[in-house]
């Protein structure tokens, strides 16, 4: 049972990090695409 538990916890905790890291990457890409547009908008409102 303990071997199974270690597997469940290890994979589970690992998947949490992998999924959230992928989301982080996707947010970074979206941010990089949008950053020039946001900067332009900010400049225009100054």
């Amino acid at each position, binding site marked *: 049972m303990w071997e199974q538990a270690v597997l469940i916890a290890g994979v*589970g905790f690992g998947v949490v990090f992998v999924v959230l890291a992928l*989301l982080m990457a*996707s947010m970074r890409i979206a941010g990089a695409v949008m950053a020039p547009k946001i900067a332009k908008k900010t400049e225009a409102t100054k």
Partner: protein
Amino acid sequence: MQELTLDSYLGQLGASNLTPGHVIMWAIGLGLIYLAIQKKYEPLLLLPIGFGVFVVNMPLTPLMGQHGEVRDLLNIFFHYGIEWDVIPPIIFLGLGALTDFGPLIADPKLILLGASAQFGVYIAFFGALSFGFNMGEAASIGIIGGADGPTTIYLASTLAPHLLGPVAVSAYSYMSLVPIIQPPIMRLLTSESERRIHMRQMRPVSRTEKIVFPLTTSLVMMLLVPQSAPLVSMFMVGNLFRESRVVERLTNAAQNELLNLATIFLGVSVGATMSAETFLQPRALLIFFLGLVAFACSTAGGVLFAKLMNLFLKEKINPLIGSAGVSAVPMAARVSEIVGLQANPKNHLLMHAMGPNVAGVIGTLVAAGSFLAFLR
């Protein structure tokens, strides 16, 4: 027809069937009602839960029974609302419509704090196993550390429905006690200079980024953790309603009427599962103890991971925001703000802490989805 005698009539009175267990459960129910009304601890949930506990422990009341195909009133709410996994996703729809992911999108690295704060989930999982709980029960107890009520209920109702009452009450009780549980752990694990670290203002986030977020999150999570789809899909569609700004009526309905109705039925049904026979057992006390361990370890996990991140970051983050990784939105973020202000009155951490705070909700969903993938 039964012969009517005074004895048979008296035997059908609730008062004749009262046991000390019932009275203890009344005290627990009334205690929850007191905490909700007087202390304002999670009143939206503890009040209906407390009332559910109170009334279901009136002997002979036709509230939670089942006679063949016919179910009593609260049993109907419980069966179709929780056992059929309807209410938790509806609550997530409302939460999605209420959640602003802006602080997380502005500083994406903070999402990792939401992952690290799931540490307590797995510590409590092992703790529960060592106390003799089976895998499904241990997972349901461990997920308390995620500090996310609907996810806890969703997982427990699937993997350990007989433990639903104590697990749910434990989760909501500790969520309401965040301002008491977290600060000592946060202070213990950080130095004065770390608590003073100043975090500069976040960048503005565009509407497009906010619209893209629920779509990419749905894509990533459902491809990698399909078992979390019922909750994730509702969470993200609620958020898409909000950020699209074109379906205000739907957003309002999800944020208000729908969420409120679901909360009422969730609270009363969960309370109604706590009969004296099922709740007054040493296992319930163990669940409360393990829930506290889960919560404390999750808080520590978030703070320590923030310190670890600081080893590699040029611009340091204040480790106090790590504790907000334990969902409990927005109370955990407020705790980070308060403890931070005590160290540096000019340093407002609230918005920074909201990032890990909402990331914690996603992290708990992934953790629950992984448990379901293995154990369902």
